[in-house]
């Protein structure tokens, strides 16, 4: 009896389990409405279209875990994507692997600068990344010089997102590999545990010998690196590079994390949560047209969902605190 209760408690208490239940209910509801949803092709298409958000959600997980925030990610993506597009258009660099390396390197530098300004310049993350959001987006426009790279300019580069390995699209493989690396790093390595330590109690972490500033720089650098990678991926997936690529999508990335149970105060959240959160967001976006909500209302619905989730979180937390107190009274 006692054991039963603890298992039940484990399931209802675990954020990931409740997310999984929501996910399954969503899938069943959508399949009932349109049976074609549960096919392999439809799911891989959906994943491919959301790879960028799903990968960036991992970087954002790290940033949120240390109690920061980064709203410049979509701009870094636009900046690197535009550079890749222009390099391709003017045939400066045409080798696909080299373009990816360039994009990742630029993202890394962008993220590192952000991290240094926040950690060593002591600028609040929201202020610093708000500034960088406009800087990188503006630079993307300056680089584009009111041109854009279309599919015919992108030649072999766009083939990357069309190629398949073992029946799965290349970009989905990239996502899976990054998720596996993150899962291992966050769960079983020193670095991962340090990130959690800094997020849960910065002072205690500093006293126990963790260089909190270095961890800060690290998470923003990783975030930038992933944004850079996503810049190249996005150009390949959408077969075009425009300066306003994924404008304002940083909100989606943060929303995915928040839905996935990552705390905005830091210290709480997991790779699985970020994955499920971004998956739920992707499925909702796919489901809205099926239940008759026009695409123009999608943003509003997304905003309301985020608001509902964060308020429910608070209410659940309050209820839990109350029941804990009750338990003590007994």
């Amino acid at each position: 009896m006692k054991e039963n209760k603890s298992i039940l408690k484990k399931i209802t208490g675990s954020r990931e389990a409740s997310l999984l239940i929501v996910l399954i209910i969503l899938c069943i509801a959508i399949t009932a409405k349109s049976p074609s949803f549960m096919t392999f092709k439809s799911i891989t298409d959906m994943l491919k279209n959301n790879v960028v958000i799903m990968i960036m959600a991992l970087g954002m997980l790290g940033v949120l875990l240390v109690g920061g925030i980064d709203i410049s990610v979509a701009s870094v993506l636009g900046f690197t994507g535009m550079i890749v597009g222009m390099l391709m258009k003017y045939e400066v660099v045409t080798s696909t692997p080299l373009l990816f390396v360039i994009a990742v390197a630029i993202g890394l530098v962008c993220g590192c600068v952000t991290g240094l300004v926040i950690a060593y310049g002591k600028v609040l993350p929201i202020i610093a990344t708000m500034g960088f959001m406009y800087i990188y987006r503006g630079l993307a426009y300056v680089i584009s010089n009111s041109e854009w790279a279309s599919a015919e300019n992108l030649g072999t580069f766009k083939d990357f997102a069309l190629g398949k390995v073992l029946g799965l699209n290349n970009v989905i493989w990239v996502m899976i590999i990054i998720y596996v690396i993150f899962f291992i790093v966050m769960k079983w390595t020193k670095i991962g545990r340090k990130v959690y330590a800094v997020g849960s109690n910065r002072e205690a972490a500093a006293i126990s010998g963790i260089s909190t500033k270095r961890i800060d720089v690290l998470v923003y650098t990783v975030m930038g690196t992933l944004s850079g990678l996503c810049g190249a991926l996005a150009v390949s997936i959408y077969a075009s590079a425009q300066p306003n690529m994924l404008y304002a999508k940083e909100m989606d990335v943060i929303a995915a994390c928040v839905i996935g149970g990552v705390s905005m105060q830091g210290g709480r959240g997991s790779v699985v949560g970020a994955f499920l959160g971004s998956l739920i967001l992707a499925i909702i976006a796919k489901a809205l047209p099926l239940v008759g909500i026009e695409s123009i209302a999608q943003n509003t619905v997304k905003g309301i969902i985020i608001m509902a989730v964060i308020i429910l979180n608070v209410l659940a937390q309050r209820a839990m605190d109350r029941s804990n107190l009750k338990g003590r009274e007994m």
Partner: protein
Amino acid sequence: MAGKSGRSISNVPEKAIRKNILSWEGMLVVVFILMVIFCRSISPNFHLENVLREMPKYLAEAFIMLPMAYVLILGEIDISVGATVCLSATMTCMACNKELPFIAVVLVCLLVGTACGLINGLVLTNFTELPPMIVTLATQIIFRGIAEISLGSGGSVSLTNTDGFRMIAGKVGIIPYIFFLVVILAVIFAVVLAKTTFGRSVYAIGSNRLAAYYAGIPVQRIRLIIYTALGFMSGLAALFLTSVLYGANTTTGNGFEMDAIAMAVFGGISTAGGKGRLAGGIISAFVIIMLRIGLGQINMNPQLILVILGALLILAVLLPNIAGELKVKKKAANTK
């Protein structure tokens, strides 16, 4: 919370702080004069009449800066103001195109703005655990989303009858009405912040919220009032913006939150809360407005102007921090 120093009670450091801020504001005046000289030298069209003609569009942001300074002094942030402006401007244009009397149109505009601010305030005061950043992020998506829905697939609306708005955009001599309104409101906001119990409570909350609560300050009521005021002023900004643009679209008000925050931060208002005066914010608002007008007149790419503003925002926080750090290090070296 020891590291986050509030306003000190003892006399000596108070003087030092005041001297610092005074020099910051003095510096801003110098920057302002340099900016005017700089703009005059790069653009032959940069003279009083032209500047005053272009000013209303940018002054709308100064409206938002005033209550935003309060929010920053509270140690909080609101990034939904751009979306609030977008929604109010959209509703205003639609109300105007429905042939409502002009006074009703003005009311719609202000009410929509106030309602947006009230929603932010209510959520934040009822769920105090939530960080303002994430709440206003969600409402930002919602407000702009509602504007998108009302604008429909076209994504924009234009005024069919501009009579009323032409009246608002009127001038006394060469000085537009909005200029007087900004000055009057700036004085009111500055006096309330510096001289009234309400204003001192804002500083108290920003320095140490828990202490303020135990001192009997109605923390949540003050937060609610400030967020609602921010919504109201965003509505006012939308009204004057409409009188310049004669329409609205889904990108109206984009970046207003950064401009308003940049003006306040550049004016020496700390984003960590509890510090700063409105006078600095007002001067820096005019510095930024001059910069935008000057750069706009030489046809600089508007995106490049955003790059410059973004860099200014970061540098305005970064440089004093670094300077402060160096000073502390020097002191430490001296005492050794």
